[in-house]
């Protein structure tokens, strides 16, 4: 049961009643607004959610329009047959433009995608199939039994229905597992891989989603204007779409809709003063980026936080929202039983790692028994974090072998090791900062592989069911770690100590058999350090093996059962804490050697 503001139904009513007030030209502009909004939502998904700087969105829009134009006007297909083919073509082009994203990101991807968009526009202008610079005319209207779709007003309602569907799809995706994983990948692709997300697949999925929406809008555009020419899909439109997404608020579907309406309406009102219109939305883009990087959506949420205005709202039962009633609390995810008891949970044999000539790890070997709390210490630059990155698959070792529960996992990628039961935290806190506390845990808790998203097409209700189940389990875990109070708070707004605990909660959510903690005590107060020690013991108590890197000697000596000491990439001592602390090599590594004294005198 959630309270839905009166805004949503009121807006839908207005949009349905709108055409009655609009003359032919205004209706035509309103339809254009909705079409641009659909394309902009596609850009919002790939760029706002997926974090991919895609400057070729106008090309996907153009592919949809031209494919349906060529199929219907030139080859005489029935428009309803040509439409799905055109949308498929747009998705295919999106996939091709997405391939470079597997290798290059941010401004590199920006210029590559922009270059491909320019190339697309020049192909349209040159190819005879696409009618050269004068484009393709006489595209047949969409035939519909009983409804004349050449009439602007009927077409308005067709596009409104499609827009409502697209918006629902976008909200459904961004609110559930697929959207959450895209946003996690956007916030920190390294940490996302560490919780099991296959980055390449999700980057391509983001592009295909953008292609899908671009294609849908392209088909509708072709049959509305019944004429396509290269200039419609050039750079001007790309920057207009970009302005919509940026001014709207990059990951907010609603923000993009509002921005689309404002910008296209402004373009229509300033039709006579073409240069001022361009000046206006150029300045708007700069202003938004400098003063309101989160766009309209950001401003809206900021104003709402400061002005607790009692918006009129009506209770509406919605199954998958956070249910208030305390249903039977499902058990918190408990670490998986290691496959077979006895053998060491983690065994590292003679591992070395070389970075351009510098030997960060030199033949390191250690064994951690199942269910043991094992500490790794050593002065700065001794290779501790490098060892963690090798065990968790971020780095592939230059030599030696890594075994997990007896199985050889040398060289496996981060998301494969995550699936095999390895979970980790990071030295400098790699949380998904624009996701809420609950979502950070949900991303790790959801173990489905990428292809499981086929459910979105085959059984969306099953997606909702799994969502409800996962939310309950995540809440239970948050309650265990005392974080349930801040469940809906953005991770970035949490105090430092709670952020550290959230990172541990995220690691536990994946039901790991092995937990790697990288300096969990850094910056914690004495009280928080004791609470941490208690949490580590509880993790081990639930059956997981814990490996801890830590500088805080008090914590290490108190919690760890065995310790390995690293210096200059080599193991210089190992054993129980008391033994290690008195080992001559360790003292020298930390406190420095006496030799300097004789020579200095």
């Amino acid at each position, binding site marked *: 049961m959630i309270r839905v503001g009166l805004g949503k139904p009121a807006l839908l009513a207005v949009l349905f009643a709108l055409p009655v007030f609009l003359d032919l030209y205004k209706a035509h502009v309103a339809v254009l607004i909705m079409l641009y909004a659909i394309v902009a939502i596609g850009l919002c998904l790939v760029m706002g959610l997926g974090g991919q700087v895609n400057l070729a969105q106008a090309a996907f829009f153009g592919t949809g329009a031209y494919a349906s134009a060529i199929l219907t006007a030139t080859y005489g297909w029935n428009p309803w047959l040509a439409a799905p083919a055109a949308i498929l073509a747009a998705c295919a082009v999106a996939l091709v433009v997405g391939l470079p994203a597997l290798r290059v990101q941010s401004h590199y991807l920006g210029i590559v995608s922009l270059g491909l968009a320019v190339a697309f526009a020049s192909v349209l202008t040159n190819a005879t199939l696409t009618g050269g610079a004068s484009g393709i005319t006489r595209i047949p209207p969409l035939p519909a039994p009983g409804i004349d779709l050449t009439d602007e007003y009927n077409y308005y309602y067709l596009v409104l229905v499609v827009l409502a569907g697209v918006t629902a799809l976008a909200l459904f995706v961004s609110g559930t597992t697929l959207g959450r994983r895209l946003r996690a990948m956007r916030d920190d692709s390294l940490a996302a891989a560490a919780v099991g997300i296959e980055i390449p697949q999700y980057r391509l999925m983001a592009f295909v989603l953008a292609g899908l929406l671009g294609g849908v809008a392209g088909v509708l555009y072709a049959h509305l204007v019944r004429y396509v020419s290269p200039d419609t899909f050039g750079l001007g439109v790309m920057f207009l779409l970009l302005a919509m997404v940026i001014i709207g608020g990059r990951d907010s579907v609603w923000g993009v809709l509002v921005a689309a309406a404002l910008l296209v309406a402004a373009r229509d009102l300033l039709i006579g003063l073409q240069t001022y219109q361009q000046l206006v939305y150029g300045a708007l883009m700069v202003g938004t980026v400098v003063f309101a990087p989160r766009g*309209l959506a950001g401003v809206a949420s900021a104003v709402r936080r400061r002005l607790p205005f009692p*918006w009129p709202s009506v209770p509406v039962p919605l199954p998958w929202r956070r249910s208030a009633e305390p249903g039977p609390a499902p058990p918190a995810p408990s670490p998986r039983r290691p496959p077979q008891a006895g053998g060491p949970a983690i065994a590292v044999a003679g591992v070395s790692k070389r970075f351009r000539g510098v030997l960060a790890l030199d033949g390191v070997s250690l064994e951690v028994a199942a269910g043991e709390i094992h500490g790794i210490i050593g002065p700065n630059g001794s290779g501790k974090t490098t060892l963690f990155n090798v065990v968790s698959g971020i780095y592939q070792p230059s030599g030696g072998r890594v075994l997990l529960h007896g199985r050889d996992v040398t060289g496996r990628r981060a998301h494969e090791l995550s699936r095999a039961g390895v979970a980790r935290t990071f030295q400098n806190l790699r949380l998904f900062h624009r996701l809420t506390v609950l979502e950070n845990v949900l991303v790790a808790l959801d173990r489905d592989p990428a292809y499981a998203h086929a459910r979105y097409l085959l059984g969306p209700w099953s997606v909702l069911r799994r969502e409800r189940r996962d939310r309950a389990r995540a809440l239970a875990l948050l309650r265990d770690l005392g974080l349930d109070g801040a469940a809906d708070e953005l991770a970035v707004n949490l105090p430092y100590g709670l952020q550290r605990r959230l990172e541990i909660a995220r690691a536990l959510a994946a039901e790991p058999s092995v937990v790697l903690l990288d300096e969990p005590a850094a910056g914690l107060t004495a009280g928080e350090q004791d609470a941490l020690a208690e949490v580590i013991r509880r993790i081990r108590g639930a059956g997981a093996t814990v490996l801890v890197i830590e500088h805080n000697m008090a914590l290490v000596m108190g919690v760890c059962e065995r310790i390995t000491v690293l210096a200059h990439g080599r193991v210089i001592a190992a054993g129980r804490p008391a033994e290690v602390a008195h080992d001559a090599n360790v003292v020298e590594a930390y406190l420095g050697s006496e030799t300097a004294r004789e020579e200095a005198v």
Partner: protein
Amino acid sequence: MRRFEWTAALAAAAMVLLAGCGGQLAGGGGGTSSAPIVVDLIGTFSGQNADLGSWAWNGVKLAIDGANAKGGVNGRKITLQKYDDQGQPTVGTDLAQRAISDRATMVYGSDLSTVSLAMIPTLTSAKIPQITSGQAPAILAQGSSFIFLDSTTSAVFDQTLADYLVQKQHITSIAMVSNNDAYGKGEHDSFLAELTKLAVTPTVDKVVTPDQKDFTSVLTEVRATNPKALFIGAEEVETGLIAKQARSLGITATFTGGAPMGTPTYLQTAGADVAEGTIMTSPYLDNDANAKTRAFAAAYRKAYGQDPELHGAKAYDGMNVFIAAMRKAQPDLGGQRLVDAVRAIEYDGLLGHFKYDERGLGLHATQIGTIKAGKVTPI
């Protein structure tokens, strides 16, 4: 969640609403009341071909001011609204919708054949007469009875030009470069058809795009065939650039082509020395051809402070044809009645004798001219 955004979306929708109502009231009537006759001029006022828009506006306005001074169309004044299609066909289609909701009696537009072509389906289905300064044969091939050309088509231009070059100047080694928008394709197809009729094959036939700026690779192939004449099928600025780059690549051929080469824009872009000796075909070569052109030139210079050229004259003639047709068809100026009236009358204008056939072609002859010392002179 995000309720505030809803209100913002509501506000946006309301704004479109208000703009809508505003639109509702301003629409003029095409019918028989004494309300003013609304003429929408859709032209290219920005971008590379922005000159075309301003010349068309000057010619049409001059004709309308003249008519309004003499009481308009039996008492009804003619009002002229200006829209910029930015040389882009898509914007043209949007503005065609605008003209319909303005309930315009007629539309003067656009200057570029590509944009005019895009607007024909919309305006024809709304039965709004449309007169364009485009010359592409494809416009007449649309089979609409609501479209008219204010001068002649590329076919006529190029027949005259090809006959002159091959039969009078005995030039048979001719290279061709044209762009692939509607105008360029029209010029290319007409000129090539006439050459084949005269059993002449072009030494090389290259196609470029309307917004291309660097023609080195294409002109290198032209130079290899060392042609006597180079036919260029493109708008004013592009024609000038091609000519300039051809000379810089050492091509000595005489430049030849259609109406664009008779304009000051071509001269300024190519440079007077490059344009020297150009042979072009145009129905309006210079202002002191006869008494009628001298009077027009004086009025034009008084109104705009610059000498008129072909496009201004075409627009002046085209508008006057329609004004004459309105006087004949009034008081009912509905679309069908107006187009029938245009076809019924004959009009002697600056460019020659106008008699419109079913397809929309009114002018059937043109002249040959050349550029001597930076000035267009008839041959």
